[in-house]
């Protein structure tokens, strides 16, 4: 259930961000499981869709909290953070949906690797938001997110390049290029979260 909390010091908002972080972490974990065992556990796509709906609900609650109760947090930062967290889940859900939409019969190793990177970055996002609410240091998590984003970039570039080798089925290219890109966008959104959190921490000092 929603945990709208009235607060003048921004703590209610931070609680909602922490909740959103946990939703991101769960989504990343489910997507990794979906791809690792694809096509056997295809029903996990439904669970990811539920996470996406939950993400929308949390984002709505965050905006409501900012509008109704206000916050000491910079409103622009808060909005950007909410949007980036929502994007992670949206792109993850888009990936899961594409697997079914495009009639994918088997996974690609690179997609499994990217899902692993996303799951790792999602865990770090969740941990960073927990630390942010508690007022603890977040630099370890932010460094880890940046590292994983670089790793994701590398895998994604190589994966897309491999699609354009001669003799490849054009349908494979169409399907997997989209899937690799949505996975990369989900990872990039984790990095956006890291950037915003970094900015918020700097302003708190």
């Amino acid at each position, binding site marked *: 259930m929603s945990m709208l909390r009235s607060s003048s010091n921004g703590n209610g908002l931070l609680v909602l961000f922490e909740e959103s972080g946990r939703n991101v972490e769960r989504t990343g974990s489910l997507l990794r499981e979906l791809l690792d065992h694809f096509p056997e556990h295809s029903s996990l796509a439904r669970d990811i869709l539920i996470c996406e709906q939950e993400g929308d609900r949390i984002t709505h609650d965050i905006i409501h909290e900012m509008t109704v109760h206000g916050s000491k947090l910079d409103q622009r930062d808060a909005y950007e953070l909410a949007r980036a967290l929502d994007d992670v889940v949206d792109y993850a859900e888009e990936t899961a949906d594409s697997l079914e939409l495009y009639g994918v019969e088997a996974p690609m190793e690179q997609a499994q690797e990217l899902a692993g990177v996303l799951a790792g970055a999602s865990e770090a996002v969740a941990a960073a938001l927990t630390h942010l609410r508690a007022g603890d240091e977040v630099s370890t998590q932010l460094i880890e997110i940046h590292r994983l984003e670089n790793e994701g970039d590398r895998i994604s570039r190589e994966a897309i390049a491999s699609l354009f*080798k001669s003799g490849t089925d054009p349908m494979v290219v169409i399907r997997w290029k989209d899937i690799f890109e949505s996975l990369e966008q989900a990872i990039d959104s984790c990095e956006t979260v890291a950037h915003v959190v970094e900015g918020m921490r700097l302003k708190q000092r």
Partner: protein
Amino acid sequence: MLQAHGTQQYTRFHMQESQSAVAPFAPAPVTGVTGVRVQPGPIRLAVIDTDSGFVRVLAKRVGEMGWQHRVLTTPPRPEDLLSMRLHALIVDLALLGPHGWEFLEQVCESVPGLGVIVCTGTSSVAQRVRGLRIGADDWITKPCHPQEVIARVEAVVRRRKRSSPGGAGEDGPLMAGELEIRSDQFQAFVGGQSIDLTRREFELLHLLANARGRVLEREQIYQHVWGYAMVHGDRSVDVFVRKVRQKIERFSPDWIYIHTHFGIGYRFEPEAPDDDDAAEPAAEEIPSGA
């Protein structure tokens, strides 16, 4: 150096293809492991030649015979030829200039099931011997009658078909352990009961069974069953082998049919439960990143 036929001017490597070099013909269902589609159906032919008169007459005749054909005016890469899923290739080596031998060698090595017919202008005995030794199936000297070219293509395809695994008994059932593989029904049976393979699962099993005892690489399997080059990291072959195994195991649980060769591919060899090396559970797992 081979001479160009007649007064035709040959340009090397700079001409436009008359059709896309990489688009495959319409899919055909069953393949032999050598790269040639062995099921009955129209012959798929490509001609690398710019002798417009010869090509036009030949194209008209093969078209009338229902063959699928395309004319290329530049030499495609071997992998592009693979994706075209051809039965035969007619090539005028004179068109390719000094790179002709290299091209011929690459094609014969990389597309082993493809029937290659050199159809070119005046040549020496040494050149013809060289071409045939490199791997060309036939050598025709221009000027030649299109009907003779067609007959020679048919003969090459026929020979290829006979020599490909499963080619001779294509429509007969293939017995392996408790399994009966019937290409006429695109299905496998155990004790007369269908194991309910999909078309692609059947093609995979049929391919492996026809290469009984031989290890087929993942890329090779993908190329033949899916008809395209396998993208690095694609797990389709592993997933479909797993599906086929599961379906067979439901009806023939005591036998092992498909063996994994880590990092390489799969081998079909029915093993009864009391065979010495039948029980190697580790070898039957699908590798995660092989």
